[in-house]
């Protein structure tokens, strides 16, 4: 089981102090957070890709390359990489570069992006989002697996005798996850290729998330990649912990109440009941997240969103310390009752081994 964190890279005013971090502050904070994640023993650090305010992360491979140089062990990933508006040639090359620099500690998650205005900035049309995801990803795979590519499609200029450089490390493409909240075609895409499927989950109830995951598992088996329970599943989640549950509630409420993503809507109590957001003691977080494998089956990756809603860096780092403290219990809980045939999420090492 891989346990880690993911960031959407929002720049949000801290409602308790009125301080709005600068882009530079937040960008540097993301590096500090990634290093801390490794220090407390987490397995994955992932960052999103956005091209609109209030987000800073337009260039994940730059950030991840910088983090790779300052870490030893943690796996670097994205949440998500836009397979719709990016040229698949550039994705192939950027992530192969990162793979080499990070000695294979890289995978990535494909997403379509749900902000309509972003598409035309890159010459694309959101109404073709699914078609773009299908065609671009098929090309991306080809670029990674074939040294010389001849290709023609609908959305970019044809390629003749093209070789994307560098070639993937050890000739092995990074493992790919596909993230989707409610688009069955994307679950189907992940299943078709035998790739991982990640459900962001953070705004959804577990019943909905379970349906998407079930669909992916069913189709994974249908496409001949193995039994449904061996499909590679990841879930998102978010928490705010303090040793004393009431302290967590009191401290997080002002952030929740005005946060761009949650605020001015449901009460924190309703939202925590309906979504994986857990505000409370470490024990509560532990129990809540372990319960999700009862719902979606034994899964491979749990990522938490913790640097959001204007929380100051100091608080985020404290959250990581607390997560580090429950990490052994979390691992033990996820391992409990896990049949031996359930695979771990593929890594560079395991994929190299498999290719032998």
């Amino acid at each position: 089981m891989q346990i880690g964190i993911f960031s959407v890279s929002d720049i949000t005013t801290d409602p308790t102090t009125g301080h709005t971090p600068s882009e530079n502050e937040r960008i540097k904070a993301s590096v500090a957070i990634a290093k801390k994640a490794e220090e407390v023993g987490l397995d994955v650090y992932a960052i999103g890709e956005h091209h609109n305010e209030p987000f800073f992360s337009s260039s994940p491979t730059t950030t991840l390359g910088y983090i790779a140089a300052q870490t030893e062990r943690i796996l670097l990933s994205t949440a998500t990489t836009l397979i719709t508006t990016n040229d698949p040639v550039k994705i192939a090359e950027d992530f192969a570069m990162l793979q080499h620099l990070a000695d294979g500690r890289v995978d990535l998650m494909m997403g379509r992006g749900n902000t309509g205005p972003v598409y035309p900035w890159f010459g694309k049309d959101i109404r073709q989002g699914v078609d773009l995801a299908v065609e671009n990803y098929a090309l991306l795979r080809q670029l990674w697996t074939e040294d010389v590519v001849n290709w023609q499609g609908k959305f970019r200029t044809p390629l003749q005798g093209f070789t994307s450089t560098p070639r993937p490390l050890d000739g092995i493409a990074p493992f790919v996850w596909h993230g989707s909240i409610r688009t069955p075609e994307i679950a189907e895409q992940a299943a078709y290729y035998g790739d991982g499927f990640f459900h962001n989950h953070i705004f959804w109830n577990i019943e909905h998330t379970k349906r998407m995951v079930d669909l992916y598992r069913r189709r994974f088996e249908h496409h001949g990649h193995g039994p449904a329970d061996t499909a590679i599943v990841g879930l998102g989640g978010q928490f705010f912990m303090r040793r004393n549950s009431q302290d967590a509630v009191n401290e997080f409420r002002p952030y929740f109440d005005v946060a761009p993503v949650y605020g001015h809507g449901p009460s924190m109590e309703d939202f925590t009941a309906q979504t994986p957001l857990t505000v409370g003691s470490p024990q509560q977080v532990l129990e809540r997240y372990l319960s999700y494998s009862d719902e979606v089956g034994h899964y491979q990756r749990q990522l938490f969103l913790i640097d959001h809603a204007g929380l100051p860096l100091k608080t985020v780092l404290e959250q990581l310390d607390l997560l580090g403290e429950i990490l052994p219990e979390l691992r033990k809980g996820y391992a409990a009752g896990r049949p031996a045939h359930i695979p771990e999420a593929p890594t560079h090492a395991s994929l190299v081994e498999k290719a032998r």
Partner: protein
Amino acid sequence: MSHLVVITAGMGSPSSSRLLGDRLADATLTALGAAGQQAPEVRVLELRDLAVELATYYTSHVPSTKLQEAFDLVGTASGVIAVSPVLNAGVNGLFKLFFDLLDEGVLKGRPVVLAATGGTARHSLAIDQAMLPLFFYLKATVAPTAVFAATEDWGSAEAGLVRRIEQAGAELAELVTTRPATDYADEFANVPDFASLLGN
């Protein structure tokens, strides 16, 4: 036949919209009985009870369990009776909010009677101008008779409102008998095979 659902956006409790919805449901049951059909269960969705959850879903995209149950109730109904008060020449915001948030396809082919209430008969065009386009867009099977009840209708000695209710009820009864809707299957039901996606 499964259930009939009365969707009312009346603001008060009780409201004249609820009253009209109940009368329409009774008229439908009477007509079904006269045709020898078994009486389906009648379920009522008072949208005022869902007001906060609708607003929350609208802005945060989190459907509450209660809201999901309401949507499911509509998606599995044999027939729908939709009643809104008329405000400023249209349906009220609560009514619009509910149908904005209903997945496209839930009402497709589903028999619906439209009804509205207002202070005077001069508001009655709201049914034609606001409700009909909405339900046509949602591809509902709309009964030919819509019912508008003005304040004066409720106390009128003339039988105009009663007659219209009976007429609309009879039409809905016929539609649910002869053109039964299938349960709404959501986006998970028909996933295209990836090979066909690649072929696009």
